[in-house]
């Protein structure tokens, strides 16, 4: 059992959805992001996704792009991600890293995996890496005991969902809508359909992301998914300050507890 398997088993036992919060490392500064991520853990995120700021984030909307730019301008270096993960883990939190693949490739896939595991990180979410191209990462994650979260989308064929979940461990990331990251008023109705399509191929937990920003939406998503993933809304709150981040976490944490999570 990996630490993520444990986490989802525990949350499932409580009959609720898990709350996963995303924030880029180094935003607004490395220490600033550690403070914010720690607050997210304390206020009720079951898992945090520590983002790696990247020069060409093609799957991100303006909010996360701007945060990544700011982090890079403030001097973020890739190795800072390990310090960030280590600090979150030391504060009792659980962290995975969400990153475009080129920084990992450049660092060395095995070296990155080794250093992430040593920092207490639990795995990687890889938005621009599909299992078909992931040979090095499949090997390194196995060698260093890390979980691998690949993404599925409403446009994924049954065949691709099957092969993607077969390569995944920890949890599957279902992108709720076709589009880039960014808070939305309405989480796509397609999300629920996608989750049931995924469940036909795996018993792994399924997290839904892209667009969630309120307790109401969190409750709605927790009604059909195992985890609610929130990104841009946290980045927006972070621009206001740590209190806003705590308040958003509390609202979302209440949301995922409102409706019983589906069994299985």
């Amino acid at each position, binding site marked *: 059992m990996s630490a993520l398997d444990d986490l989802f088993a525990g949350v499932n036992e409580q009959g609720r959805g898990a709350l996963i919060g995303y924030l880029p490392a180094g935003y607004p500064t490395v220490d600033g992001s550690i403070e914010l991520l720690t607050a997210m853990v304390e206020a009720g995120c079951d898992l945090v996704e520590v983002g790696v700021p990247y020069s*060409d984030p093609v799957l991100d909307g303006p909010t996360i792009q701007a945060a990544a730019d700011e982090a890079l301008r403030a001097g973020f270096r890739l190795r800072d991600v390990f310090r960030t993960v280590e600090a979150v883990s030391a504060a009792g939190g659980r962290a995975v890293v969400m990153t475009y693949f080129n920084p990992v490739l*450049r*660092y060395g896939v095995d070296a990155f995996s080794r250093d992430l595991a040593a920092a207490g990180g639990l795995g990687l979410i890889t938005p621009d890496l599909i299992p078909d191209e992931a040979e090095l990462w499949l090997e390194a994650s196995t060698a260093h005991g890390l979980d691998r979260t*690949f993404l599925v989308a409403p446009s994924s064929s049954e065949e691709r969902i099957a092969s993607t979940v077969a390569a995944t461990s920890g949890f599957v990331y279902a992108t709720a809508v076709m*589009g880039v990251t960014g808070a939305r008023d309405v989480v796509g109705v397609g999300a629920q359909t996608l989750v049931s399509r995924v469940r036909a191929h795996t018993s792994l937990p399924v997290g839904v992301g892209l667009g969630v920003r309120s307790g109401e939406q969190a409750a709605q998503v927790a009604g059909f998914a195992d985890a609610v993933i929130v990104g841009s809304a946290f980045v927006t709150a972070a621009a206001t300050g740590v209190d806003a981040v705590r308040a958003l976490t509390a609202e979302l944490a209440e949301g995922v507890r409102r409706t019983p999570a589906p069994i299985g």
Partner: protein
Amino acid sequence: MSPRDPETEQEADVDPHAPGPHDPDARGHFGPYGGRFMPEALIGALDELSAEYDKARLDPEFTTEFTRLLRDYAGRPSLLTEAPRFAEHAGGARVFLKREDLNHTGSHKINNVLGQALLTKRMGKKRVIAETGAGQHGVATATACALMGLDCVVYMGEVDTERQALNVARMKLLGAEVIPVKSGSRTLKDAINEALRDWVTNVDTTHYLLGTAAGGHPFPIMVRNFHKIIGIEARAQILDQVERLPDAVVACVGGGSNAIGIFHGFLDDPGVRLVGIEPGGKGVDSGEHGATLGHGTPGILHGAMSYLLQDEDGQTTEAYSISAGLDYPGVGPEHSALKDAGRAEYRAATDAEAMHAFRLLSRTEGIIPAIESAHALAGALELGRELGPDGLVVVNLSGRGDKDMDTAAKYFGFYEGS
């Protein structure tokens, strides 16, 4: 050097669409390069495009219509023109220009655009998006969309909308919407990012008409094949005019489409050197350049593994060139494979060298080249001097320079004191 034996000539040597030994594997890998480093949300669209292209390239109805458009609309075959007065400055070697500047819309870009626009119609899609740097690909795309009745949106870095204002006006006149991109370096790389974001959102209705032989599979092989006609024509024309193969074929390399198109005509002629000229900007040691193959390292950008300008942390670094069409930190994956195999060589020409060649060709031959193509001309001057008076060089003159008049006038001080 003797021409290729007609007996052993492969189908792919004369039919640009026929599958052949230089195709990547089924997942788009040229050795370690290429592939699909793309969000899962786009894989369905890439699969659809691959399937459609694989059918179309073998379908006489498609290939005939494509060939007809190249002839009756784009004006192919383009000429092969000797440039003797220019060649006096190239060590006396003979220099021939493959006149892609004479194509409709003024550059090689139209070849690829007509092919992909036809595919868009076959897929039943009604909306086309594209990125553009110099504006040539945007203009070509807007043109094909006007011709075929497709909606057209072009993403263009804000910096480029300023230095290529004329092309922005052309695209608008042709009915396209031009969206200035304000993120990142505000040039070609960021225009591609923004186009990919649009594609991921609208993929059901929209085809992304990528303008160079880069990106995730099948773009590199598909774009290459649409441009192979350049090399096929050039080879036949030089044999016809000089009765021998050239010593070197020279082309500028931004993303690599005009270069891969002309290189392919000569790939199986081992005696022909294939020379790509990258933008040396303010000098490759200045850090301000776009010499991806010469000074980059392998990595991922825009969906493929290839050489890349990047820092220690794998962040893409900004390219620089006076030429908007070459100002790109990535390059098509097949060029990376050709470089590693030693089959092609890649050099750089600085802004100053390119602008020297730009003016020289204008004054010696009465042909104003695109600044992109002027990089290839600068390379030809250097190669000609290395080869000496017996040398024979074919240059891909990928585009004409009308769009660059403002940049050139400023560079040469034509606006001053008048």
